[in-house]
């Protein structure tokens, strides 16, 4: 289950202070390995961050190849492993991968829609050493949830959230919010409370992959966000010491960009189902990427030596206004993928920044969302769901 949520900014190291510098000057070690095990998924979420042409990507890494990736990343110092996708539970070797990861000492996170999970599996995964299961929800009400996910999944997710807790994991729920469900934040949080959740992440849709394609239909309105933020803060106060609620303002409504991935090639490493190594899960779509593959090169060679990972490391690649900006060490100029998608040049400042000459592109996108919201249901553009048929049509495969 690949969400386009704000959790991508929350890599380890952010809480841990300075991270050791390894042999090569200025290159840190990868701390976070996101293993996108497969693009197969029973859901069709229109805000998915998977690439639009996922249907064209076939040859998945084998069990042995994944284990080798885990070993190499772990040897370089990675501590967090995200098992994601697609839906990772569609991999028949998921139990074995969990076992291997845990034996290597990873803190192992399963990021799932809950589809394909049952109480027996949750328990078996626990015994294999899985540390954490994050169950994603699309909304709080059954109808909307099923509409957004394009399938009848809601009741099962509730059962799985309970099974996760019963098996001894912390219950971590992730709700991806957007214009069509953000007004239900109080219902979402009430649901989380009734489930006795430990952590709730209200992850704002970020516009990559399918979400970018559906941006006009997903963009929340300013007044919606103000209500949502007030609600989230009220619940945060009420639930102090009980349930942790993470709420992040979507970057389009901020004045400074997010510190995307905590900096390019800094702590975060994604490996896609076919073995492509990426500095973030959206970077495949950037122009000029060489897309090194773990089948051909070691993780160390890719991390330290590849053009892709060095391309936006440090500050030398920056243009103005980033280059002379006194905040560049805080936000690294924002997101390279967002800069590219909006301005056509991945080395520009993230247009979210009000210092960027391209900020108007963000404001116009927000306005297009409002225009779209004001249309009648008959006039409004339909959401395009993430499925192989749409993938092939849109990518011209």
């Amino acid at each position: 289950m690949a969400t386009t949520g704000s959790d991508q900014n929350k890599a380890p190291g952010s809480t841990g202070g300075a991270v050791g510098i390894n042999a090569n000057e200025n290159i840190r070690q990868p701390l976070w390995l996101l293993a996108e095990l497969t693009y197969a998924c029973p859901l069709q979420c229109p805000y998915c961050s998977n690439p639009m042409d996922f249907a064209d990507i076939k040859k998945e890494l084998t069990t042995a190849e994944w284990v080798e990736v885990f070993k190499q990343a772990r040897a370089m110092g990675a501590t967090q492993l995200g098992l994601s996708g697609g839906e990772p539970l569609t991999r028949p070797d998921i139990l074995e991968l969990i076992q291997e990861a845990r034996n290597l000492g990873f803190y192992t996170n399963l990021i799932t829609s809950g589809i394909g999970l049952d109480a027996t599996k949750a328990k078996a995964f626990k015994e294999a050493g899985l540390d954490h299961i994050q169950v994603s929800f699309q909304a709080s009400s059954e109808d909307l949830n099923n509409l957004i996910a394009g399938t009848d999944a809601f009741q099962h997710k509730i059962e799985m959230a309970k099974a996760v807790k019963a098996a001894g994991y912390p219950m971590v729920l992730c709700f991806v919010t957007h214009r069509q469900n953000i007004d239900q934040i109080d219902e979402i949080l009430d649901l989380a409370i009734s489930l006795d959740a430990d952590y709730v992440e209200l992850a704002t849709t970020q516009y990559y992959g399918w979400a970018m394609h559906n941006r006009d239909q997903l963009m929340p309105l300013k007044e919606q966000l103000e209500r949502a933020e007030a609600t989230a803060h009220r619940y945060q106060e009420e639930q102090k010491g009980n349930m942790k609620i993470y709420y992040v303002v979507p970057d389009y409504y901020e004045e400074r960009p997010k510190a995307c991935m905590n900096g390019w090639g800094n702590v975060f490493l994604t490996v896609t189902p076919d073995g492509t190594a990426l500095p973030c899960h959206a970077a495949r779509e950037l122009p000029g990427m060489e897309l090194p593959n773990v089948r051909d090169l070691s993780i160390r060679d890719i991390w330290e030596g590849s053009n892709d990972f060095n391309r936006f490391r440090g500050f030398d690649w920056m243009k103005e206004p980033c280059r002379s900006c006194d905040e560049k060490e805080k936000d690294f100029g924002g997101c390279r993928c967002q800069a590219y998608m909006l301005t056509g040049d991945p080395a520009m400042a993230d247009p979210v920044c009000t210092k960027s000459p391209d900020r108007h592109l963000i404001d116009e996108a927000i306005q297009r969302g409002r225009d779209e919201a004001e249309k009648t249901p008959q006039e409004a553009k339909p959401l395009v769901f993430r499925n192989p048929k749409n993938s092939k049509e849109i990518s011209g495969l």
Partner: protein
Amino acid sequence: MTERVFNVDSVPVLALGYRFQWEPAQDCYVLLYPEGMVKLNPAAGEILKRVSEKKQTVGELIAELKAAFNGADLDDDVYQFLEEAHGNDWIRPE
């Protein structure tokens, strides 16, 4: 002053979902939790190592640390750390 959570008879345990381990690449003890990591200084590492290894009271924990560190007077430091760690949701009294 907030109320103290731990006294000599309380048994501190790691909070649900937290894991403690030695990280060779970081050359320190760390606490791992869903999607995050805290690097621990040596003193914090010695305390949490004992919290994670076996269930014991704060009194027993302090006695063990004193034995390991030449009878150093560390009661106040241990209590202070435990309260901080609880404030960060790393540990809870059993």
